[in-house]
């Protein structure tokens, strides 16, 4: 079902966001390096990555952030926007390994208590071995919140 806005009644906290599952590929990692003009060899040369003690080429820190953004925008659609987002990479993500991105909105953003449309979301990204690859936090602003 296509949807452009969050359904009414979706705002009782906590809100568990629909999980986003992504599987980064060598091609996507290459494309992301290309559009960000990131020539760091750990993102395209498996030999170089292994020589640096990594398992394979690694998913960019910046791309990890975009997976969290997609988790949020898949839920927000046209109903709001991301005001800020932070994330921390805890272990390397590598190609062809599934990543599960999960998020929970448990509270209103305390720094913007005067505006109940600001919600705080806690996020985690877990690989197929159950290891936490990244954690994140975001503030989203819901338009016409009531």
């Amino acid at each position, binding site marked *: 079902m296509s949807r452009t806005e969050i359904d009414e009644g979706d705002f009782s906290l906590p809100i568990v966001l629909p999980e986003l599952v992504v599987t980064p590929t060598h091609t*996507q990692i290459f494309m992301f390096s290309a559009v960000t*003009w*990131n*020539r760091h060899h750990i993102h395209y040369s498996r030999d170089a990555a292994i020589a640096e003690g990594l398992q394979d080429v690694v998913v960019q820190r910046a791309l990890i*952030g975009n997976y969290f953004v997609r988790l949020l925008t898949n839920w927000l659609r046209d109903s709001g926007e991301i005001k*800020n*987002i932070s994330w*921390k990479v805890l272990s390397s993500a590598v190609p062809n390994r599934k990543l599960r991105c999960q998020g929970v909105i448990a509270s209103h953003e305390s720094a913007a208590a005067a505006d109940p449309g600001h919600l705080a979301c806690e996020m985690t990204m877990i690989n197929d071995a159950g290891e936490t690859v990244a954690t994140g936090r975001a503030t989203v602003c819901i338009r016409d919140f009531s």
Partner: protein
Amino acid sequence: MNSTLPEAVQRAIGVTKKRRIEVTARDINRFAQAIGEMNPIHCDQDHARSSRYGGIVAPPLFCQTLTYEDASPDQLPADGSPLEIAVPVPAMRAVGGGSEYTIHRLVRAGDVIEIKSTLKDVHTKQGRSGLLYILVVETEFTDSDGRPVATELATYIKRA
């Protein structure tokens, strides 16, 4: 700042570099493809025109495409890592640590964005495999009217 850092590193902290780049619809489309975002608001002019944005807008973290200098390969360190973290700490292997991103507005095709990049801090931390050097780079993105578009505080980790 850590006074035990090499002098050249201490001198690099606080140095700001500025650039200006005009964003095209093609840049936005390519970035959306690279992150796997298929929303037509990023690539379909007709769809975007009828949306509340009235035209194509970029995904929230689009400014990541503007972060690194267009340095030629011979200017980069041997590992190809970005110039923004090319400071002479006694550790060569770099990985991304994390990011704090503030989004003031979405980028549109035709925006001219000024990019101001500053190495804010370098400090050390004891890791499991030895001493880690933590580099913090701030990048501010403003539009041609001087209004903020986004700000990023990115952390990189270098180890021996």
